């Protein structure tokens, strides 16, 4: 896969470069700020751009660069790396795009398999969300959702957690060692119990419905 990366910490940038190369990806460029990645990608096509959230231009150059990249090159996948996995930043990321985006903790992409899996899912159109954050969203939904979540079976909560990570039906099936058909059935039950409209056609819209549900409060919609 062709990737470019923007990260202002030299040590981390070099480490990521080495890991990407070991995973067999082609790095077309590696820069230290948001403006530089926008300039670089004006001439170099890539599959995925990897962006540190908190880099120049301050305070969050990764997000502002991503907005410009999404507008200029809508097909480029965006992987955001951060020291923090918080739903505030997730919502800002989903405001930039709901397809071909990922949000992961910096220390959690430290293996060739995880890094490649993350990049491939993004290139494939999925939303990839740090599992720690997805778990927190499911276990600690905002507002008065707790009662409804507790109506789910243990297996349905597993499926909901993997959906909140942005995984596809096949991805969820692979993680839980069940058939995609069984996953579909669980998802239908979950949507029914939570009172959500099931849009079975579009994967990213379904993930978005789940995330919005878990995150939304009575007061701020």
């Amino acid at each position: 896969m062709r990737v470019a990366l923007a990260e202002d910490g030299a040590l981390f940038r070099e480490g990521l470069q080495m890991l990407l190369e070991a995973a067999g990806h082609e790095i077309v460029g590696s820069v230290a700020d948001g403006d530089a990645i926008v300039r670089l990608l004006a001439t170099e096509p890539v599959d995925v751009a990897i962006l540190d959230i908190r880099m120049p231009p301050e305070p969050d150059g990764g997000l502002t660069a991503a907005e410009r990249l999404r507008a200029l090159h809508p097909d480029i996948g965006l992987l955001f790396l951060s020291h923090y996995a918080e739903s505030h930043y997730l919502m800002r990321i989903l405001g930039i795009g709901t397809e071909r985006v990922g949000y992961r903790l910096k220390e959690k992409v430290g293996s060739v398999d995880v890094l490649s899996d993350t990049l491939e899912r993004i290139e494939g159109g999925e939303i990839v969300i740090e599992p720690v954050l997805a778990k927190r969203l499911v276990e600690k939904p905002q507002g008065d959702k707790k009662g409804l979540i507790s109506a789910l079976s243990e297996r349905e909560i597993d499926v909901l957690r993997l959906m909140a990570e942005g995984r596809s039906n096949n991805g969820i099936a692979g993680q839980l060692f069940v058939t995609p058909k069984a996953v579909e059935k669980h998802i239908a039950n979950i949507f029914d119990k939570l009172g959500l409209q099931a849009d079975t056609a579009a994967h990213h819209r379904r993930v978005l419905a789940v995330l919005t549900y878990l995150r939304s409060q009575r007061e701020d919609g």
Partner: protein
Amino acid sequence: MTPDSLPAVLSGGDGAERSSTVGVGADDPWHQRMRLERELHDGPALRLSALALRLGLMSHRCEDPALAEGIAGVQDELHAVLEELRNLAGKLYPPILDEAGLGPALRQVAEHTDAPIAIVDNSERFGPALEGATYFAVAECLAALPVGAPAVEVAISREGDELVLAVTGLEPGATGRLQETARSLGGRADVGPSGSVTARIPCA
């Protein structure tokens, strides 16, 4: 680490390429806290995250499955250390408070707390000192909520030149902490029935 690399860590470490906008010429305690959070983020946290990547590379190159498993265990430990650093940074000055203000920062506290907590705000900003003092006072009250506590609501708004903080559902003992903070900021707080407090604090 070589001795001559130490000053680089203290001055922002690996992230020293950035031009920090935080706290230029500002020496009040809240700006100092922001700078310390930034140093943790740019120094040790980034260094540890880079270590996780280096270990991943070693694991990729080694052919001994037992060793690879051991390396994965060390990576998990690094994640645990970074979680502790994130907690510590949150006690100094959560970056979201600087970036997005009281509402989003307290909503983050709510997400990390077991008790049901609703935050109502309209994205008003009040400056680092007022936001810092109010945030830590409210966060402390929320942290003191017992398991199974009833729902708490925290509403933040601006009325004229006052920050109005209305909290309901607190433990009776926790209301004093908010009164104290309001007074220390030149404001006042009225305690109502069943753990409710309304604090009015002057803001420029």
